[in-house]
């Protein structure tokens, strides 16, 4: 046994020791207080390298395979980079169809995050039987909510299917627009979903508001360190997921950069590789690695936006803005609430697009060819701003690929939130089930894009290990 003066580490990882995806090491100081936290992301596939040598036009088909939860965002960022290389713009209808598919993915991804993964905690309780704390267990006691959530996700997925014939890893998003039109029959079928989808999202909003009200103290003390925020906004500062320009704000809400072309991202964002994770640590370049923490995703997008584009989401946005008197809301728990406000906005916007008289037009694609060596494309994935950057030779073959993934940008803050929560709840070497839950739900707030990162979609069964400096296990707790 080591003396107390040795730094000790706690390792949290999935119970199945052989599985090893999301893991956390907590490093203790002499007195047993948490000194540092390391959130290990355990996945690497190497897209940046193996795409080299391929034609740039293949990228909207290859890159969705980065992630099965947000494939459309990759396709959109990719196709925009391709359009910069070709020097073309998509047609009105092509662009609108892409926007609609992108909204659909946002709805299904947010529905998964809230209803399938998070709502069991809110409705059944953090301390309820873990075997039932999931969407199937929820269906037994709260059938309307569980089935509503499943069907809301289905609506989002069905938008892709009714345009392209496939729900996941669709083809048809192509430089210049879309390869497939939307038929009138499919337009009407999608429109029929709107009232039900809206009702379900509002049910979700009621659930989260009630939970926030009843757990005010926890919600407001939960991983609340201020960070900068980044998100896309429209020309008037409105909330935007598909197009738009970059806006960075400071911790107090001061606008640091506004209406920045995404193609200039390298002026504002740099990243650093770290030894303990396969996920890099991006930061706001002007502030440097230590001070440049910024966050992306629903909370960030609502913090940077001046307003929402649709009336019902705007009404909810105004309630959200009151939480910190118009200043940025830093509480990590508010990711859930903002995710639902965005979902409401997406359902409203889907209705507007489906009623656009040009949506079923067959003028869906501009033709183009290689014109420029370099292309940069950007979109708001459900979890945050996503960048694709390609450099090609004059035949269109890729020489260099750079991908800045949404979850990556939350990585430094996720790591710090885990540290904060661990410091708040762990004292000494006694670790309780409640503490494990808190640490886990910190990560859950960010809804990390799991395939790009951790692989733990649902609950993370955990084991906690106390080890000494050399990695010898002193104590092990399972749940």
């Amino acid at each position, binding site marked *: 046994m080591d003396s107390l003066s040795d730094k000790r580490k706690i*390792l949290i990882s999935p*119970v*199945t020791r*052989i599985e*090893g995806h999301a893991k956390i*090491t907590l490093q203790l100081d002499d007195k047993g207080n948490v000194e540092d936290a390391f959130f*290990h992301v*355990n996945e*690497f*596939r*190497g897209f*940046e*390298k*193996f795409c*080299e040598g391929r034609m740039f036009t293949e990228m909207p088909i*290859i890159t969705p*395979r980065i*992630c*099965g*939860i947000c*494939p459309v965002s990759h396709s959109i960022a990719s196709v925009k980079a391709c359009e910069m290389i070709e020097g073309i713009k998509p047609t009105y209808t092509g662009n609108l169809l892409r926007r609609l598919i992108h909204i659909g993915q946002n709805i299904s991804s947010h529905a998964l995050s809230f209803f*399938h*993964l998070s709502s069991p905690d809110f409705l059944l309780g953090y301390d309820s039987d*873990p075997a039932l704390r*999931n*969407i*199937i267990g929820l*269906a037994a006691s709260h059938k309307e909510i569980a*089935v509503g959530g499943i069907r809301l*996700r*289905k609506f989002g997925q069905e938008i892709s299917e009714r345009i392209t014939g*496939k*729900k*996941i890893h669709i083809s048809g998003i192509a430089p210049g627009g879309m390869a497939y039109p939307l038929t009138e029959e499919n337009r009407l079928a999608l429109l029929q979903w709107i009232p039900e989808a809206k009702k379900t999202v509002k049910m979700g909003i009621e659930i989260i508001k009630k939970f926030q009200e009843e757990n005010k103290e926890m919600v407001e003390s939960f991983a609340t360190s201020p960070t900068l925020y980044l998100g896309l906004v429209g020309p008037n500062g409105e909330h935007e997921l598909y197009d738009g320009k970059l806006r960075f704000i400071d911790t107090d809400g001061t606008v640091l950069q506004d209406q920045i072309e995404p193609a200039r*991202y*390298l002026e504002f*964002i*740099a*990243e*650093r*590789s*770290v*030894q*303990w*994770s*396969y996920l*890099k640590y991006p930061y706001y370049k002007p502030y440097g*690695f230590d001070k440049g923490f910024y966050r992306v995703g629903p909370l960030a997008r609502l913090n940077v936006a001046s307003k929402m584009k649709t009336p019902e989401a705007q009404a909810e946005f105004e309630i959200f803005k009151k939480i910190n008197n118009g200043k940025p809301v830093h509480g990590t728990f508010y990711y859930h609430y903002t995710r639902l406000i965005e979902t409401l906005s997406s359902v409203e916007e889907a209705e507007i697009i489906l009623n656009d008289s040009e949506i079923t037009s067959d003028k869906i694609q501009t033709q183009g060819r290689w014109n420029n060596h370099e292309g940069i494309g950007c979109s708001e994935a459900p979890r945050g701003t996503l960048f694709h*950057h390609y450099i090609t030779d004059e035949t269109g073959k890729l020489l*260099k690929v*750079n991908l800045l993934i949404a979850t990556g940008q939350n990585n430094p803050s996720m790591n710090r939130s885990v540290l904060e929560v661990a410091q708040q709840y762990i004292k000494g070497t006694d670790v309780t089930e409640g503490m494990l839950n808190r640490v886990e739900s910190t990560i859950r707030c960010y809804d990390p894009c*799991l*395939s790009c990162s951790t*692989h*733990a*979609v*649902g*609950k993370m*069964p955990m084991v906690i290990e106390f080890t000494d400096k050399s*990695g010898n296990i002193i104590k092990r707790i399972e749940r």
Partner: protein
Amino acid sequence: MPKKKIATVWLGGCSGCHMSLLDIDERILDVAQLADIVKCPVVDGKDLPEVDITLVEGSVTSDEHLHEILHIRKQSKAVVAFGDCAVMTNITGMRNYFDLKEVVDTAYVNAISNDKEGKLPDHPALLKLHDKVVPLQEVIDVDFVIPGCPPDADTIFYVLFEFLNDRVPNLSEVKKLKYG
């Protein structure tokens, strides 16, 4: 007849196959009537118990995946290679054309957005990447394959439903055999 036990596991892949599993939508509740889903990334799951069927998404890319798939084989009556990455490595195997060091350096050393102070990922808690990505049947006996990137939800439901009713699914017969 006791309720059957199903597990689903995710190795080196994008989660698209699991998302397609979720695309069976409300039918997930029918599956839950016939079987207990004892381990799955979207529900809770303890250590993998003995199960009747395990669906495995993704390729074997590292020491941890290899360890895991051997354990899965031991615990499962039937192992199903679930999706193209599990069946034939698909996109995950595209790095096999390159030297591993080159692949890693491209992301962690030479990326355009990287600063100069980074270090290569190297930590006891991290998995160790294998030089080459392999499909499941390269390291274990596989009982059934569902190809597709991802397989569509109806196909997945069909396979599960047949297995849970003690029949062997026949993808050719129901015209559901497709790659990509």
